[in-house]
């Protein structure tokens, strides 16, 4: 290239892997076309079969699979446990909090005779020695209307 436009520079600056063009065949191109996936040239020749059959490698695979299985088992047990707890709990049994709520909000309008019918006095653990006269008087004055007292007299 000895023209006046010659920049006089070696333009062969790129290299290729050895035997690269030999690996470009119609079969390789068709394989790429079918799968859409490509592999480096001579890839399959570089697969080390010993690595695959190596015991340590296989043990790692088994350990990983076992771990996954164990975790799945634990998760399954937890799910079954929640299900049993929800399904087999007695719908008729009441919790203490529910009873207290009922007493606080639902029994306000009940009369004293209703209370007597509903509850067995012996179930209440009341220490009458701790109730003094002042407390009792306060209770009577605030809990009952004067009309009721007059009428009951």
């Amino acid at each position, binding site marked *: 290239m000895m023209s006046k436009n010659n920049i006089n520079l070696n333009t062969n600056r790129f290299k290729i892997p050895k035997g690269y063009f030999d690996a470009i065949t119609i079969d390789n*191109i068709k394989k790429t076309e079918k799968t859409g996936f490509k592999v480096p040239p001579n890839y399959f020749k570089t697969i080390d079969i010993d690595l695959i059959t190596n015991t340590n490698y296989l043990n790692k695979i088994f350990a990983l699979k076992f771990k996954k299985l164990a975790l799945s088992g634990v998760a399954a047990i937890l799910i079954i446990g929640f299900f049993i707890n929800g399904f087999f709990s007695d719908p008729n049994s009441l919790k203490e909090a529910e009873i207290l709520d009922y007493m606080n909000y639902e029994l306000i309008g009940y009369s004293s005779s209703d209370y007597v019918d509903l509850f067995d006095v012996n179930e209440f653990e009341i220490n009458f020695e701790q109730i003094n006269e002042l407390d009792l008087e306060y209770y009577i004055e605030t809990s009952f209307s004067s009309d009721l007292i007059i009428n009951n007299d």
Partner: protein
Amino acid sequence: MENESKFIAKLKEKETQNKYFEILLNKYKEPIYWHIRKIVLDHDDAHDVLQNTFIKVFKAINNFKEQSKLYTWIYRIATNESLNFIKSKAKKHFKTSKEIMIAQTNKLKEDPYFDGDELQLKFQEVINTLPQKQKLVFQMKYEQEMKFKDISEILGTSEGALKASYHIAVKKIKKEIIKIQTF
């Protein structure tokens, strides 16, 4: 021309397609590879583009209307595939094609498949500063020694415009190379 028509006819026939495609592949894989490589710079990228090019050639051969020579048609596919490859890489990284090529050039120093010295690295950097088409013209004319007539068919630009563009490209590059060589 007659031989080429017969060759193309064989490429289109199902019974002979594989055999003649193999011949086509063996004839053009090297020059097409180097054409692509000079555009994308990286060997692995060039390999991908080369495979895509020949897949497209294989699929589109039945639609080839022989309005140009077979080899300029293949070169045109290779050029478009290379430019599209760069564009899609640029899009993926939210960069321009120019920025991608600058980054690619910077990587050449560490590239095991780059055999050039410092001057050739600078040469590549200077080529990157050229507008896209001018860069292609320069590479195809100067580095691949193609005829302006063929380059005109591949790029779809008139010969006159290509000659002017090439002349300007050579002037720019020569100026930069002399600067580097002086220092």
